[in-house]
């Protein structure tokens, strides 16, 4: 029951925040215990929790809930065993284990509540939250309850699981298991022991303890075996694979270094000739693996690889000939089936409208920001979202061949990207390797005529000392430091290579809908008094028009009774004159209604003036909802080529011309057009960055050199991309660009440092007199210098660019 709050005393007046979610209460819903809620949903969550003795939820944090204003989606499809089967992790005849991804998890109260599900449903034996992944793992007794009721329970307390066809999050957890941590553990173990055993050698072993020397040496060699054969094996594999493809990358000198270190150590120890370089060998592999680990930053809660499948529902309601409804998973939908789409549901396959008033919001697919009316018998493309009453459709194409899905069959999605710019370390390591080999062979041939032993020793020493350990570490450490700085500034990059991509960009392409504009219903304001009858008249006029402004007015007054129009005349770009019930109604621009000059128009508001029977009524002001911080587009325009590509019609062209060069704005672009546009730019030698949000940009994002998906909620759907940018951080884009260039400079700097270490080492090495002690000192020293230099310099650069 709805009841507005009576102001009993002033105390309640202050409490205008919803007790559950903390939102401002526009309309207060009084709940039990004098609590105030913003909506019925929040109140219900509160009553469920307080009745089950879970009001602790509200004591750990203030307003811990997420608003429950929206209607819950229907989970009926979970009752279908076939669909449920795909979602659960494990099931036997007693228990079922399932993991849900719940975007609403955000605080300690969430953890506490979700781990006390047992109090709400005793059949749930166990529930564990993984906070960073925003997952909850639930084990329940499947004789008492079922998947559907568990999901319904979660939804009822405000934690709606996100169930999608493409369970990316789960896949990610499985995908990252490649023993790197184990390899580091083994490398660390060996490194530590070898250091310990090498110590006596450095301090000098007296003559009567010579037997230890051999023993220690053999032990060291034994520790080197797992280092080379287990921890370092990937470097050999990668070097070999690259060599076969005629590529010299950094793995080649690294693998060579490791191999030479091991062989020389084995030879020296077994032939009682010296102590070898066991510690350098272990240290090298250990540091390299650490670098690899640092480079691999994972965002558990983000996914950069989502495609249309995570946008589509898992199942859809199908009605058969007898009118009975059942849920069918998307893959099983056949041509000719009748599907039922309710308000806010997405049409999963191309279909013909059979019944109902279809108002389809295609903003995600085409970029068109306003809902489109469809008439019976018209084909509706997949991906549209129905707004309004439930509609019935007949499927004409299976999901896999629908319009939207076909975009994914474009080669941009199937080809692994070859057009990427080479990273700095890739470019440099090629020359580095050539020079290294030249120096090594040079010293070999220099000593060969005089002293065979010395020649071999110099040759191996060069390969050991010049092993580009510091070089291999400089990029991962710099880039991962940069990544975590960008991450704090709400800019999430897929991997470390993207930082470098960012520095090379010279062309930026913006999408319009959702990228520089944000959807919002409260942007239209009526100035002037309008009676109910006048409202009906104006609504009826606007309902005839396809103009976006008319559509907005109709949306504003949705549900008004429409009257028949006896005459109707629309002047494009000006307004409409229509006769209804013998009243002359004019709706249009100021010029159209009032005559005279168009006053200086404000770029971010559009006005629609109203006149009935030649009498002025008032006007609507419609605010263009542009994102904050769009001034940056102007400043970026000085250094970058900036384009606007929109799937929308050009009705906002004027408003946008303040930001974009009118010649560089393109409207009515299909997803394919966008992709082709990017390709075209790339063929002209440009490095293109695409900023978009919807499925309609997915192709362009994939094709571009750097695709950034912009979103207001990073946990929401965003198409596959290289980076995800929080909408609030858009204004920092120029800083991000500058910062990425700074990071590149840091990499150059650290390269110079590592090179100078190498030169010092080489001067010992070419003479053939490299003592193991120098190698053992030089290698960790250069590594430590590089790590500290890169992290300090990167943070200083961030400070300079005023990034957090």
């Amino acid at each position: 029951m709805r009841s507005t709050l009576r102001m009993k005393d002033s105390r309640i007046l202050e409490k205008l925040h919803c007790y559950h979610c903390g939102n401002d209460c526009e309309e207060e819903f009084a709940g039990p215990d004098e609590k105030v809620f913003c909506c019925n949903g929040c109140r219900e969550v509160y009553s469920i929790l307080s009745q089950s003795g879970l009001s602790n939820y509200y004591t750990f944090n203030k307003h811990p809930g997420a608003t429950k204003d929206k209607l819950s989606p229907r989970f009926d499809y979970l009752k279908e065993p076939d669909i449920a089967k795909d979602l659960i992790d494990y099931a036997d005849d007693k228990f079922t284990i399932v993991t849900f991804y719940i975007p609403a998890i955000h605080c300690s109260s969430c953890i506490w509540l979700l781990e006390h599900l047992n109090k709400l449903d005793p059949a749930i034996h166990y529930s564990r939250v993984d906070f960073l992944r925003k997952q909850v793992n639930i084990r329940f007794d499947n004789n008492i309850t079922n998947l559907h009721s568990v999901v319904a329970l979660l939804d009822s307390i405000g934690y709606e699981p996100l169930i999608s066809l493409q369970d990316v999050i789960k896949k990610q957890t499985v995908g990252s298991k490649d023993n790197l941590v184990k390899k580091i553990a083994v490398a660390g173990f060996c490194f530590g022991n070898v250091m310990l055993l090498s110590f006596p050698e450095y301090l000098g072993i007296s003559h009567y303890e010579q037997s230890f020397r051999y023993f220690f040496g053999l032990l060291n060699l034994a520790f080197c075996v797992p280092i080379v054969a287990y921890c370092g094996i990937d470097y050999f594999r990668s070097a070999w694979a690259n060599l076969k493809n005629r590529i010299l990358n950094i793995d080649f000198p690294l693998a060579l270094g490791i191999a030479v270190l091991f062989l020389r150590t084995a030879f020296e120890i077994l032939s009682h000739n010296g102590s070898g370089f066991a510690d350098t060998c272990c240290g090298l592999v250990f540091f390299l693996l650490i670098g690899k680990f640092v480079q691999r930053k994972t965002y558990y809660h983000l996914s950069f690889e989502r495609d249309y499948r995570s946008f589509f529902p898992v199942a859809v309601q199908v009605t058969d000939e007898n009118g009975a409804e059942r849920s069918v998973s998307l893959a099983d939908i056949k041509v000719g089936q009748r599907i039922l789409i309710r308000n806010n549901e997405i049409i999963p396959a191309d279909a013909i409208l059979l019944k109902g008033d279809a108002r389809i919001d295609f903003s995600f697919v085409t970029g068109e920001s306003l809902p489109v009316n469809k008439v019976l018998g018209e084909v509706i493309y997949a991906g549209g979202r129905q707004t309004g009453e439930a509609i019935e459709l007949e499927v004409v194409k299976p999901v896999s061949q629908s319009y939207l899905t076909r975009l994914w069959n474009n080669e941009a999605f199937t080809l692994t990207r070859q057009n990427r710019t080479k990273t700095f370390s890739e470019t440099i390591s090629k020359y580095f390797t050539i020079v290294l080999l030249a120096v090594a062979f040079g010293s070999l041939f220099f000593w060969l005529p005089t002293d065979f032993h010395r020649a071999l020793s110099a040759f191996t020493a060069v390969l050991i000392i010049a092993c580009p350990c510091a070089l291999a570490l400089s990029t991962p450490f710099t880039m991962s430091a940069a990544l975590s700085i960008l991450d704090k500034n709400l800019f999430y990059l897929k991997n470390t290579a993207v930082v470098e991509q960012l520095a090379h960009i010279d062309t930026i392409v913006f999408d319009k809908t959702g990228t520089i504009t944000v959807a919002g219903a409260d942007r239209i304001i009526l100035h002037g008094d309008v009676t109910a009858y006048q409202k009906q008249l104006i609504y009826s006029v606007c309902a005839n028009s396809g103009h976006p402004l008319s559509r907005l007015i109709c949306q504003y007054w949705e549900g008004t009774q429409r009257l028949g129009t006896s005459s109707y005349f629309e002047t494009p770009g000006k307004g409409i004159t229509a006769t209804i019930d013998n009243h002359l109604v004019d709706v249009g621009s100021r010029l159209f209604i009032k005559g005279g000059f168009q006053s200086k128009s404000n770029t971010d508001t559009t006005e629609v003036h109203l006149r009935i029977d030649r009498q002025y009524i008032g006007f609507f002001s419609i605010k263009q909802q542009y994102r904050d911080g769009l001034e940056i587009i102007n400043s970026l325009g000085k250094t970058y080529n900036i384009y606007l590509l929109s799937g929308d019609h050009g009705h906002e062209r004027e408003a946008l011309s303040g930001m974009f060069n009118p010649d560089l704005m393109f409207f009515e672009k299909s997803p394919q057009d966008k992709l082709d546009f990017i390709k075209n730019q790339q063929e002209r030698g440009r490095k293109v960055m695409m900023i978009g949000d919807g499925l309609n940009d997915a192709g362009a994002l994939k094709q571009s050199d750097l695709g950034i998906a912009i979103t207001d909620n990073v946990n929401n759907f965003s198409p596959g991309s290289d980076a995800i940018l929080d909408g609030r951080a858009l204004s920092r884009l120029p800083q991000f660009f500058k910062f990425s260039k700074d990071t590149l400079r840091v990499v150059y700097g650290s390269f110079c440092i590592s090179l100078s270490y190498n030169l010092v080492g080489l001067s010992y090495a070419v003479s053939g007199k490299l003592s193991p002690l120098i190698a053992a000192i030089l290698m960790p020293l250069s590594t430590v210098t590089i790590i500290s230099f890169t992290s300090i310099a990167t943070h200083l650069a961030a400070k300079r660019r005023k990034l957090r």
Partner: protein
Amino acid sequence: MSIIYFLIGCSVLLALIFLGAFFWAQRHGQHDDLYTPSVRILLDDEPIEEDKK
């Protein structure tokens, strides 16, 4: 001084035990979630009666 052989054997064995323990923890997913336990430990199980105003 031959006790050194024994001592080194002991130290390596000990280190191997720790390495094994680490592997065991890794395989049993003890490092999968490094954040949530730090929050969980601060949450009380017993309901705190909310102070009524």
